[in-house]
């Protein structure tokens, strides 16, 4: 399966899960909405250029916005994730490129600790920005903080569960490919 097809399927799957399951399940608490859709951006191959990343991030967010009827909200947040992603990857991956020959970010490719940091930072960033935009008009700082932390915690839990349940079989990036 080519990267393109694989990622198209992921895109549909993640957005479907976000729209029809995570946004629909009875909320655990009024502060908590779990988010999983941006994992699609986190899982994009390393080879995607930064420009494309931005466009894909924007598009992903906007598609979700169409379903949730909030034009621009998720687009802004996932765009931020897409923009920060390459910088984080350069910081967290080994400099020596011979050790580093997987296609896309995964616990296997980056080791568990760097991968966890990668997910943690981006999730926190996504939620902070999203909740910040949501609460721009009203709400106290305390509830803003609680919402960010609680949603981040739940989303992280979900993402790690997904990682453990569906370990991706990643091919090595070979010279021929």
């Amino acid at each position, binding site marked *: 399966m080519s990267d393109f097809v694989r990622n198209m399927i992921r895109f549909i799957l993640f957005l479907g899960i976000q729209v029809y399951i995570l946004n629909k399940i009875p909320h655990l608490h009024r502060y908590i909405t779990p988010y999983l859709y941006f994992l699609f951006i986190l899982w994009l191959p390393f080879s995607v250029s930064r*420009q494309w990343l931005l*466009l894909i991030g*924007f598009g992903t967010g906007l598609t979700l916005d*169409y*379903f949730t009827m909030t034009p*621009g909200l998720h687009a802004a947040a996932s765009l*931020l994730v897409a*923009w920060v992603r390459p910088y984080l990857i350069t910081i967290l991956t080994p400099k020596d490129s011979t050790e580093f020959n997987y296609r896309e970010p995964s616990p296997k490719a980056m080791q568990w600790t760097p991968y966890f940091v990668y997910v943690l930072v981006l999730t926190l960033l996504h939620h902070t920005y999203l909740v910040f935009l949501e609460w721009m008009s009203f709400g106290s700082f305390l509830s803003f903080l609680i919402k960010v932390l609680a949603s981040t915690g739940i989303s992280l839990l979900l993402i790690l569960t997904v990682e453990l349940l569906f370990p991706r079989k990643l091919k090595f990036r070979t010279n021929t490919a």
Partner: protein
Amino acid sequence: MRNIFLFIGRYKTFLSFLILQGVALWFLFSFNRFHRARFLGVANEVTGRINTQYNKVEDYFELREENRRVHRINDSLLNLLPQNFMQPDTSLREVRDSLPFDSLGHYRRYYFRPATIVYNTVNSQKNYLQINRGASHGIKDNMAVLGSDGSAVGVVVGVSPNFSQVMSLLHVDQKVSASLKKSGDMGTMEWDGKDPRLLNLKSIPRSTEVKQGDTVLTSPTSFNFPPGYMIGTVAEVLTDKSTNFYVLKIKPSARFFSLQQVFVVENLQYAEQTTLNQNTRKRIEDPKKNPR
């Protein structure tokens, strides 16, 4: 000038990030409700179509609950039907506390209780249904059971505190009094135990005209069934050569294969009617024991 291009080239990622971020924020803040509605109009077509497809699946999960709601509404409505009430005799006024009267003096004859089928068979020759209402909910023996569309299903034959057994119409010992809607002729509904899709209606005299597709209703003389509820339609008209009666094959309108919700109908005068019936029989048929 060259420096500007160099600057753009160097920071093109950051710049496009800023531009897209600006677009997103512009979407978010500059669109008021009216614009938002128009902006989402086109996308709505797409998401709406996807949502419709999803809903088709999702609805099935809600079906049970929805069904229960509809059934409850039906129950409250069926209790209001005029057939449940009898005209009082104008010259004689009965006072009975146990029967609720309405403002016109009609008194209630039938009372409907909703129930859910918890067990159901159609394969045996003696088919019983089990419903989740029992003696503690006021169910008694010999109450009629109607499907959620008002079609006859069976008669309660056994009661435990929380459940009841219902003898289905698909039971070889079952005999339900039925009448043809068109002519009003009354007969007995039975089942020969062969085909669960066909019941037999017997003792309709051959003098009446019966056609395929005629409606068969519960009869007004039945002690347990309220009158005028559908039992089925005539599927085949056979004549019994030896007697002067038809044997009518009836296609039951209750779908015994997929029963879910039912009504248990209580004839509030059942005890009185049956006791009278028995006493009369006893007195007339054994006049020596009980001289008049």
